[in-house]
């Protein structure tokens, strides 16, 4: 390891923070000011969330699903038992109109999957991301039963050619990680990036705890819905126009 130039590093961090502030509202997809060093632990001051704008989400588009498959090394559903971390759902009105929404782990503040896990493998990280520690998971699948969103998958078959950033294998339960390996490096989830690339920009990622973040401002300004809000799980994924 070469010697770290602290002066230069400080300058880079300050510039990055300044860039995050300097961009006009509506242009930032996330807040650079949350940047965290690799040796710093995830902070409980942050709660990562997603806002899905259903008025922008297109029924024919599955860019988010494909991006998720590519990023995390998923098969894309070649067999019925293959893992699915995010899926598109079409809602058909009796009068004929079709609305579409992506459904994935809702990253609940009070996750039922964590409540039922007998080993502690299912856990919520300090910044609100709900994950499975595969080193501890015994594959009992209680969490799959407990999840009201059907968000989790079980890996039935041996896996080969995994992504170095996304280890996964037979015998464990898995679900959307909100691309935690990207978030830890100040990048946005792959689905959000892909959605923006299509021009639909139906997904907005940000810190729900920061009142100045774009996602918090949108949630304060427009009516948003939590799916199965009656369960009072306080989901981090919100839907606009549901």
């Amino acid at each position, binding site marked *: 390891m070469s010697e770290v130039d602290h002066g230069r590093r400080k300058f880079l961090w300050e510039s990055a923070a300044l860039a995050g502030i300097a961009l006009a509202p509506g242009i930032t997809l996330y807040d650079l000011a949350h940047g965290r060093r*690799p040796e710093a632990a995830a902070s409980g001051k942050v709660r990562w969330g997603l806002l899905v704008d259903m008025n922008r989400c297109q029924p024919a588009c599955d860019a988010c699903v494909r991006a998720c498959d590519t990023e995390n090394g998923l098969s894309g559903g070649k067999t019925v038992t293959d893992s699915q971390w995010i899926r598109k759902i079409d809602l058909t009105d009796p009068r004929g109109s079709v609305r579409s929404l992506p459904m994935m782990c809702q990253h609940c503040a009070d996750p039922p999957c964590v409540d039922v896990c007998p080993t502690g493998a299912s*856990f919520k990280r300090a910044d609100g991301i709900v*994950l499975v*520690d595969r080193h501890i998971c015994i594959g009992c699948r209680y969490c799959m039963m407990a999840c009201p969103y059907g968000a989790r998958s079980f890996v039935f078959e041996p896996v080969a*050619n995994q*992504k170095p950033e996304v280890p996964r294998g037979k015998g*464990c339960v898995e679900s959307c990680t909100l691309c935690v390996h990207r978030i830890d490096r100040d990048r946005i989830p792959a689905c959000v990036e892909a959605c923006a690339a299509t021009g639909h920009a139906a997904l907005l990622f940000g810190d729900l705890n920061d009142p100045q973040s774009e996602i918090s401002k949108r949630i304060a300004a427009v009516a948003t819905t939590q799916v199965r809000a009656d369960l009072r799980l306080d989901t981090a994924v919100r839907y606009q126009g549901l």
Partner: protein
Amino acid sequence: MAGVPGGACTRRTALFAAALVIALAAAVGAQAAPGAPTRVPLPSIEAGAGERCVEDTAFMRRNHMELLRHQRDVTVHEGIRTTRHSLANCVTCHAGRKTGRVTGERGFCQGCHSYAGIALDCFECHADKPAPPMAEVTR
């Protein structure tokens, strides 16, 4: 009478000296030919790309599993992604120059684990080859 014990002693000393000379010659011979077969079979490991490990070799032989276990917990639960003791960093350096992997008969990890008779579970989930350069994280 006086000469008998002294003669035996001299003979014993001569035998010991001869044995020592033979042993030394054998040791020098063994050192002179490092590739020569030894009585104990050793694992044959394919050379990796890295030049120097992040810690001393002797320390790593005994403690690499503890470093990896600690790193895995802080990475999964706290999101700490330092690379020094990460499995991905190990794989990047130790992947075989020809095979590009740490598994396989002569792979750096599997070769030694097979030799020692220790189960190697890491690569049922983790990638056993480095990330392609294209996947290099861009900030």
